[in-house]
């Protein structure tokens, strides 16, 4: 520990009390990475503030010491957004987890950002409203983490991403100033909420949020359609959107992932299915059957082998369980996996899926796929053994090849996971130098010394040269 860090840790212990500051190496190992396990770095210390005032005190102390901060929630992020590049202080928001107010009349929830997504969901049960963003990590991920990455989820298709549901924020800027944007529409000013959502903790530490609540649907129809090929399945998805239908969700799983899920949980899927698509319609009961019939017709046009419909809430839950547990089941295939996140215009999905197959063969890396197909958002899961350096290198290259293909097809290198450290190099391929300069203007306006989450979103000279 350097003298600067040593002195800072002592100061932080004084500010937060010693039990809210970790600095022993054995304690820090748990904070060396997030869901992107390919990259790891130990922080110098981890702090657990319990209030905005304590966050301000930590930010100011770190600012004075010139030691960078990584704001962090549950670290379920998948692109290394929580990686303490070059050390620094990990600022945990997980102990700021109060739901401050649920105001059904105003359709708002006011929360501290360490609240797990699922805890908010449970608190809203029975009110007639819910918080719509439902990333697959929602059992653990926090509202703050969801905001930092502008998280999506299966129901993004109809309800939009996190940004569409955040209407106000309290944030601590890099100089310790607190900015509060109240949940009141206001033409007088720039859209700071819009800038902060998805900024991966690089512009401010977001401490509180006002979230928009969505009325619960009156009813659902949840279908599981089995197709002979990924091509047929993605063509059917594209046709559903083309027919003017907007289901609540359309989730695609390819044969590789279906096989693993089946081995792990035995949901009763045919292991030779080329692809499975889970389609959910929601809204007033009166119109669901006719929409379902139109979807069935499209599925038949694409040679669906079988369509099963959930007839009870328990059956619906089971269908969703097989989707939401899919990624976890991948652990059976190999010691490590890397979940990619790319997005293309919806109609280009079949082309992207075909490219993933080619890339898998070219780099000799097994890839299984889940996709928020209705949005054109694919999550190829690359399985490997991280103890094998050659495999790791091929995984990185295969991942880049997939994302290059997304760019070529008119899409983006990330839909909902963010840039983190994983995709930094690809930013120069996604954006022109002048566009990157514009991104740099945002960064430098908020945090000129790059105190917050240094080395994320944009390449940082400070990281390359060491702080």
């Amino acid at each position: 520990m350097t003298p600067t860090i040593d002195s800072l840790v002592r100061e932080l212990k004084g500010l937060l009390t010693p039990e809210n500051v970790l600095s022993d190496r054995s304690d820090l190992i748990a904070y060396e990475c997030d869901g992107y396990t390919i990259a790891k770095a130990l922080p110098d210390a981890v702090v657990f503030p319990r209030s905005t005032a304590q966050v301000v005190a930590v930010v100011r102390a770190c600012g004075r010491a010139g030691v960078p901060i990584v704001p962090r929630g549950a670290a379920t992020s998948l692109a290394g957004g929580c990686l303490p590049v070059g050390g620094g202080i990990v600022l945990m928001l997980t102990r700021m987890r109060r739901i401050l107010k649920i105001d059904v009349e105003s359709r708002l929830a006011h929360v501290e950002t360490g609240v797990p997504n699922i805890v908010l969901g449970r608190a809203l049960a029975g009110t007639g409203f819910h918080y719509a963003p439902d990333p697959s990590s929602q059992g653990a991920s926090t509202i703050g983490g969801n905001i930092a990455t502008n998280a999506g989820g299966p129901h993004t298709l109809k309800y939009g991403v996190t940004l569409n549901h955040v209407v106000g924020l309290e944030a601590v800027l890099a100089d310790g100033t607190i900015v509060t944007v109240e949940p009141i529409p206001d033409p007088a000013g720039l859209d700071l909420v819009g800038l902060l959502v998805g900024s991966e903790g690089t512009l401010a530490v977001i401490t509180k949020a006002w979230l928009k609540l969505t009325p619960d649907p009156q009813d659902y129809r949840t279908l599981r359609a089995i197709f002979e090929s990924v091509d047929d399945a993605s063509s059917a998805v594209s046709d559903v959107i083309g027919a003017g239908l907007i289901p609540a969700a359309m989730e695609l799983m390819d044969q590789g992932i279906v096989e693993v899920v089946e081995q792990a949980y035995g949901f009763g899927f045919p292991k030779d299915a080329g692809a499975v698509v889970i389609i959910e319609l929601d809204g007033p009961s009166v119109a669901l059957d006719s929409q379902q019939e139109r979807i069935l017709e499209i599925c038949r046009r694409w040679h669906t082998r079988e369509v099963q419909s959930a007839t009870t809430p328990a059956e619906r839950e089971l269908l969703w369980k097989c989707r939401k547990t899919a990624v976890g089941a991948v652990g059976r295939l190999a010691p490590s996996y890397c979940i990619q996140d790319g997005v293309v215009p919806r109609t280009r999905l079949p082309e992207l899926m075909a490219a993933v197959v080619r890339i898998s063969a070219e780099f000799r890396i097994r890839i299984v796929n889940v996709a928020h197909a209705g949005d054109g958002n694919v999550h190829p899961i690359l399985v490997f053994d991280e103890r094998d350096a050659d495999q790791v290198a091929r995984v990185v290259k295969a991942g880049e090849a997939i994302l290059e293909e997304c760019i070529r097809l008119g899409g983006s290198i990330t839909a909902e996971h963010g840039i983190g450290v994983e995709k930094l190099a690809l930013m120069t391929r996604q954006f022109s130098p002048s566009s990157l300069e514009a991104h740099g203007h945002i960064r430098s306006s908020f945090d000129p010394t790059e105190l917050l989450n240094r080395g994320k979103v944009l390449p940082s000279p400070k990281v390359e040269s060491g702080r």
Partner: protein
Amino acid sequence: MRWFDPVETLAPTDVTGVVSAVRDARERGLVVYPTGGGTALGFGGWPSAKGLELSLAGLDKIVDYPARDLTITVEPGLTLKSLGEMLAREGQWLPVGIPNADRATVGGAVSSEPPYPGRLRFGSLRDYVLGLSIVDGRGVEFTAGGRVVKNAAGYNLCRLYSGSLGTMGVITGVTLMVRPRPGATAIVTCSLSTLEEGKALFSTIRKDAALLSTFALLSGRAVAQVLPRASASPIVAVAILDGLKEEVGWMVDRVISSWRSDQRIPELADEAERDLLRSRLSDFPFGPSVFDPERDLVIEANGPIAATIELTARLRETDAEASLVTHCGCGTVVACCRPETEDPTSFLTRARAAVSSVGGRLCVRSYPPGARLNRDAVFGPVREEWRLAQRLKDRFDPQDILNRGRFIFGAP
């Protein structure tokens, strides 16, 4: 031109022309006032320097419309009406009603974001902006966002430009997310005596709000200005429902039966009334038969959603003659006032105090050119977060050549 009295007007027809115009103006030390259809020029502080008008009306092409992707890329000068007609051919729409759609342009709407009736359900126009092409105040061209519906790559520059009134850059291209056009629309109205009755009506259908695009209360002169048929009631509730035919039919039955059980007399608008009412509400208060730019002061008040009715009441007390539309569930009230016996600045001070008393904020959406209101009068007192906004402005337009004096930047 009433607002800028430009030293000259440039009307480029391509992006290169926009870049040249901005760079040239910068070299000559001239301020640039970008314009679209000219329908929202009344919004913003009085221009604080002489400059040139940069009309984007000539950039009006549809660049790419992959309908099955539910996205469209257009040049900024395309009118909302032309956009709507193109989308309608594919059974799609942009569910955001912009006043005077026959003249208002896409770029102008993104820059000025007028309040519109469907925000309760459909969100704001900025929720539909997926990508932008920009020429900033240095004449540097860049793109923001992309053409996909989900995109987490980098900072959301599209949000920076939405609603920034042309002060951060000139928009030269817009990619929008569009939606399938609803199969059916119904409008149910109900005459009321008090605002509280309106609040009660909204409460009865709030939980079925999935199909409710708008719940507005018309009061004062707005009753006659918006309703197609004459009404003697001081307040009229308007519920707009969009969805599939079966859904809308079901929802209409629910609304009507629930309001009847509340001892009200709901009325279902017929087809002709429905379309006229929707269009008048979208235009409010800038519709041609309603708005007099030489006399009217249009204000937008926003407050806590729970205080929307109180906000309306305070504004009615401030100006008993005002024409008001209250957007329940959004916390927004739009009022068209004619303070003919009072100085506009003094009227705004009173109105702002009334709005503040219920935790709201007031912004002027249009004022008579003779009033020459400054920034503080239009947008209210300086706020802490404007310091941050100013830092952004300084990077994208370091010489303050874009729309100087019109937005929150700089001294009044």
